[in-house]
């Protein structure tokens, strides 16, 4: 049958099971939008293209499914760049379709023209400028394949306006003859590496597992739990790995690194075998590489060959899907005897718990603790970036994977609200809580309009200290309290702003109102913004200073240590 370019792309997206679109129309994408009216998946009209990208990102992290993000050319597309970079850093699949000026206008500095193909090269896994209607079918399929297979990531299709309306013969569900190579296959399971790892586990006295995003993405949580419990090996989860192992399990040691738990960092420093399952040895995890796991044999399972030996030298590299490797490990594992080691880390957990002081003010950690209590770890938890994000990572105890949505690698402030909206679209039956900072929230709060328009009942808890809190903390500790431009003394009234958007807004100034307000929000049938005016100078502890080793971790403020 004869279809135009827009129809062909939509047919291919439908055939691939795309169920959700986010975006904003504009001149160069109008023919595509015209056809989108007839597509049988919903489109959510956002207020900013960055918001659309983060919504698709949050949607994918929670559902494991891919959404498309649609924008016009020029500014519409360049507004996506942060969202693409964020998805690229955290290996989140999404498909961006951006309008482009007509092919005969490309390169003439036409109205709303930008080199979006060039701009998106470093922030996508795959991108394509479509110059021929006859390549749409193949390229759309390749885009979907690239986004979702191997190590997932964002892709971008730049779609000139004239190609959107050019007609061509379309044969659905038939392999389009293509000059491009067949997909690269991942290698067979590395049995040699697995044998070495099993030997190392049998030899080890103080083994530790570190589970990263690969656990979540490969769906390996159950296999991980089986493995850790059978072997009796404690589990650390990286920021993006949280939820990959039950937060309440006795074997769980929390998060490692810069704001990790004391016991996770102690375990890293003392272990003699580190089993890394799908984590990429980020600098916030390792600290100074030369003092990272100094006595350990390091095994690293990863689907991306380029992550192995990138920052940390690996003794037992295993290239492969984490879940596949764990299944094989579980078949062959003989339980170890690590009683002495178990006593050591159990004592650490008892002696160095996460804690915070009471002083009558609203402590941000207390608000998070209360959210944890009323949701019992069964909600979906979303954050912005900064202090509140670290506290949420520390104090929420996740029961299951894909319930934690946070911007890890890129650290994108403003990620929270749109990501929470995307998460709620993916799992409407779940309570979605956004724990945000005032700085992060203000960057994308315009999406409250989207939450109101579509009645997306996300619950927002702003831990408002009127500071860029993490910047303030570093200035206090490393810049002799010179608080250069980190203070927002004239912060707006976020409760009233929410009401202006048609969203229930409550300002909370008294610690005794915290629990009530959270319960009110939980019961309210619609989106809510809770603006908690929290203690302004609370810091995140423990902390490994930037560039220092995990063995140089500070447990608590220096002044407190001096007193004790």
């Amino acid at each position, binding site marked *: 049958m004869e279809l135009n370019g827009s129809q062909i792309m939509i047919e291919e997206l439908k055939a691939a099971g795309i169920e959700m679109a986010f975006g904003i129309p504009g001149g160069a994408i109008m023919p595509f939008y015209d056809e989108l009216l007839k597509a049988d998946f919903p489109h959510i009209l956002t207020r900013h293209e960055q918001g659309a990208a983060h919504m698709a990102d949050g949607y994918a992290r929670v559902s494991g499914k891919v959404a498309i993000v649609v924008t016009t050319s020029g500014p519409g597309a360049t507004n996506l760049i942060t969202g693409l970079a964020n998805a690229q850093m955290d290996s989140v699949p999404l498909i961006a379709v951006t309008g482009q000026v007509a092919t005969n206008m490309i390169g003439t500095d036409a109205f709303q023209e930008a080199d979006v193909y060039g701009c998106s090269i470093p922030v996508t896994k795959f991108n394509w400028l479509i110059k021929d209607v006859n390549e749409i079918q193949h390229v759309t399929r390749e885009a979907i394949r690239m986004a979702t297979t191997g190590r997932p990531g964002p892709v971008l299709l730049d779609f000139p306006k004239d190609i959107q309306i050019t007609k061509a013969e379309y044969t659905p569900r038939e392999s389009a003859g293509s000059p491009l190579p067949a997909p690269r296959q991942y290698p067979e399971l590395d049995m040699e590496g697995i044998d070495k790892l099993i030997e190392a586990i049998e030899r080890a006295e103080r083994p530790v597992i570190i589970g990263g995003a690969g656990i979540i993405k490969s769906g390996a949580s159950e296999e991980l739990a089986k493995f850790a419990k059978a072997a009796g090996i404690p589990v650390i989860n990286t920021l993006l790995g949280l939820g990959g192992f039950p937060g309440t399990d006795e074997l769980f040691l929390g998060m490692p690194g810069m704001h990790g738990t004391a016991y996770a960092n102690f375990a890293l420093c003392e272990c003699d075998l580190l089993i890394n399952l799908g984590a990429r040895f980020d600098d916030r995890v390792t600290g100074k590489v030369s003092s990272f796991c100094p006595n350990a044999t390091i095994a690293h399972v990863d689907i991306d060959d*380029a992550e192995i030996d990138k920052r940390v030298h690996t003794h037992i590299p295993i290239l492969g899907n984490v879940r596949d490797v764990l299944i094989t490990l579980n078949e062959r594992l003989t339980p170890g005897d690590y009683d002495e080691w178990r006593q050591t880390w159990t004592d650490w957990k008892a002696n160095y718990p996460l804690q915070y002081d009471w002083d009558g003010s609203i402590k941000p950690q207390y608000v998070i603790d209360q959210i944890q209590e009323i949701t019992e770890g069964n909600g979906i938890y979303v954050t912005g970036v900064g202090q509140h994000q670290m506290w949420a990572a520390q104090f929420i105890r996740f029961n299951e994977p894909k319930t934690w949505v946070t911007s890890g690698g890129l650290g994108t402030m403003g990620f929270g609200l749109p990501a929470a909206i995307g998460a709620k679209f993916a799992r409407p039956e779940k309570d979605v809580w956004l724990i945000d900072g005032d700085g992060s929230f203000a960057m994308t709060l315009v999406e409250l309009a989207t939450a109101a328009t579509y009645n997306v009942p996300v619950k927002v808890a702003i831990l408002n200290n009127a500071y860029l809190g993490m910047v303030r903390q570093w200035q206090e500790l490393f810049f002799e309290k010179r608080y250069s431009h980190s203070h927002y003394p004239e912060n707006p009234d976020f409760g009233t702003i929410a009401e202006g958007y048609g969203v229930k807004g409550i300002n909370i100034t008294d610690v005794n109102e915290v629990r009530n307000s959270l319960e009110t929000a939980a019961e309210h049938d619609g989106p809510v913004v809770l603006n908690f005016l929290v203690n302004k100078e609370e810091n995140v502890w423990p902390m490994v200073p930037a560039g220092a080793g995990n063995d140089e971790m500070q447990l608590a403020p220096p002044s407190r240590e001096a007193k004790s």
Partner: protein
Amino acid sequence: MRQVYSILVNNHAGVLSHVAGLFTRRGYNIESIAAGPTEDATITRIVIVAIGEENELDQIAKQLRKLYDVREVEQISYNQAVTRELVLATIEAPINKRSEVIQLANAFGAQVINMTDDTVTLEASGNDHKVRTLLKAFEGYGISQMARTGMISLPYDGMPEDWEPIA
């Protein structure tokens, strides 16, 4: 360390941007880059000489292999491949030095392709070592202009499988 990469890519607009962009954004150092068609019209060969630590040189190959349009990446050692570079160089050669310069050019098998009262322009090709030696030999006369293609490379055909290169 220096490393030669022979990279086969799909002949598709934007491939060079992807490859060059990878080197820029990951902070890898390129010494030379040369690209051109192969026996298959759909495939282009890019030869890159990069400088880095041993670990980084392996990283470069791994990162290149992740690019969509990259089909094959070979890290080439001098023993296993023929490498060539073409050089055009204008040498300062006043009348009293001219025959000396031409004699030297002949010694390297270089050809004279232009001559003025004060200069001789030469065309020469060879492997990395020869090109360096040649340029060093003419340095004393003064090289007023130079253009180099960057290295291109092909693996030796018919190398026995059990052949061990000399390290």
